[in-house]
């Protein structure tokens, strides 16, 4: 694991996002209400640079006629095909669709009706140290 200073903390205020090149990889950084997230800037489904996607919640339903937008600010929606990834884990919430990828673990969140898919956006730990944003890569 190596640690990389990306920018000063005030260059990534709440509600903002930016990209940084770390170890030859482009990483997208988000500050959502003070929570910092860093993901590899490439959608594992179609290859889009996901940094420009919408930060949103997840639509949940217990059946037809019931629609709830929950966990607002916890998901990133890819700018191309709309695939949603949980910012905190990189986990895709779209359905698994290929045999090869089915071998991934599929987990079910308590109370959630959606099945997580096999596509996971690569995520890096990010911390503020002495007012600098630091990303840890593996």
């Amino acid at each position: 694991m190596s640690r990389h200073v990306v920018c000063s903390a005030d260059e990534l205020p709440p509600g903002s996002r930016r990209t940084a090149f770390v170890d030859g990889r482009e990483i997208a950084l988000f500050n959502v209400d003070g929570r910092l997230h860093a993901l590899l800037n490439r959608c594992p489904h179609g290859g889009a640079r996901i940094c420009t996607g919408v930060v949103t919640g997840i639509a949940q339903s217990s059946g037809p006629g019931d629609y709830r937008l929950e966990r607002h600010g916890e998901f990133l929606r890819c700018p191309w095909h709309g695939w949603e990834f949980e910012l905190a884990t990189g986990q895709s919430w779209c359905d698994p669709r290929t045999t090869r990828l089915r071998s991934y673990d599929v987990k079910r969140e308590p109370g959630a009706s959606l099945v997580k898919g096999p596509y996971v956006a690569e995520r890096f730990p990010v911390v503020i140290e002495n007012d600098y944003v630091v990303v840890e890569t593996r």
Partner: protein
Amino acid sequence: MNAPFLEQQARQTLAVVDCDIHPAHRTPGELLPYLEPRWREHYQTYGVHVRQALSSTLMYPRMMAAGMRTDALPSAGPAGSDLDMLRKQHLDPVNVEFGLLMALSKGGMEERNPEFAAAMSRATNDWQIDHWVRQEPRLRAGIVVPQEFPEAAVTEIERCAADRRYVQIMLSSRPSDPLGHPRYWPIYAAAERAGLPIGLHPVGYNGGHPSTGSGWPTYYLQEHYVFVACMEALAASFIVGGVFERFPGLKVVLVEGGFAWAPALAWRMDKHFDKFRKEVPHLKQRPSEYLRRHIWWTTQPIEEPEHARHLVEIIDWIGWDRLLYSSDYPHWDYDNPSFSFKFPMTETQRRKIFRDNAMALYRLS
């Protein structure tokens, strides 16, 4: 020593032909300079007449993110209106050798006023050359025609066809009548004379019919799927109507309507053809033969079956020389060539789908 490395390089840098790129107007009045004064005044006074009740939006559940990639919005104008962005975001990184324009917005395809439809088509075609093809030599135009007024459509085809920067004739896959109807046949005669393929692409609500035979869809997921239903119905109409019997040189490209359904349609039609032959004595071949001889398919949005290799068997049936790569830039269901095919292909198959089939069909060089 170097051979494997070079081969790998060649695959990654393979030039592609993209058969579906959408140019947009940067400003609402962008076509005005291309209209004669009479129609310019008409446009400014009455506006364009889209075949639906609501003038500023599409009638039923369309579109997610206005139909666009959310990262394709330039600093000024709508997605698809900035040539430089198209170069940087798509043509350069994807290594597009030729990109075929599909001009959908405010062309003549959906206009009901016959003379105005002709004027708008003419303006759209001149605008494509002026704003896009002349500025960017990798781009090629499609001839927009007032398709519900075949006589005017023929005039427009004949005006443009000699110019090799136009490579096909565009028709909406949501026409007023199924496209096998004889009233459209003058268009096919003109296409055959010009040696240009017909490219069918879905538009808004041409003709005003619900987008399914069973009424309007409730969800965008349904609406997006019925692009397929339209294409199936039109393919059957072309074939059973005898269009390909009358115009043996006619080539039809189905853009953005999927392709995995093609074998099933052909098998079904063939089965019934054996029983209903007397009803359609004008057909000299089985329906599947017309399908495989006269129809091409573009890939985007490609079907993604659970077992990706299932597509290989389908393409084996359709023919590896019948499939053309398309991206649909800048729309939200854009397909990047590096990610859209999730099954292994031979180098020959890859070259055909990404480049060679389109080069031959559209006579690009």
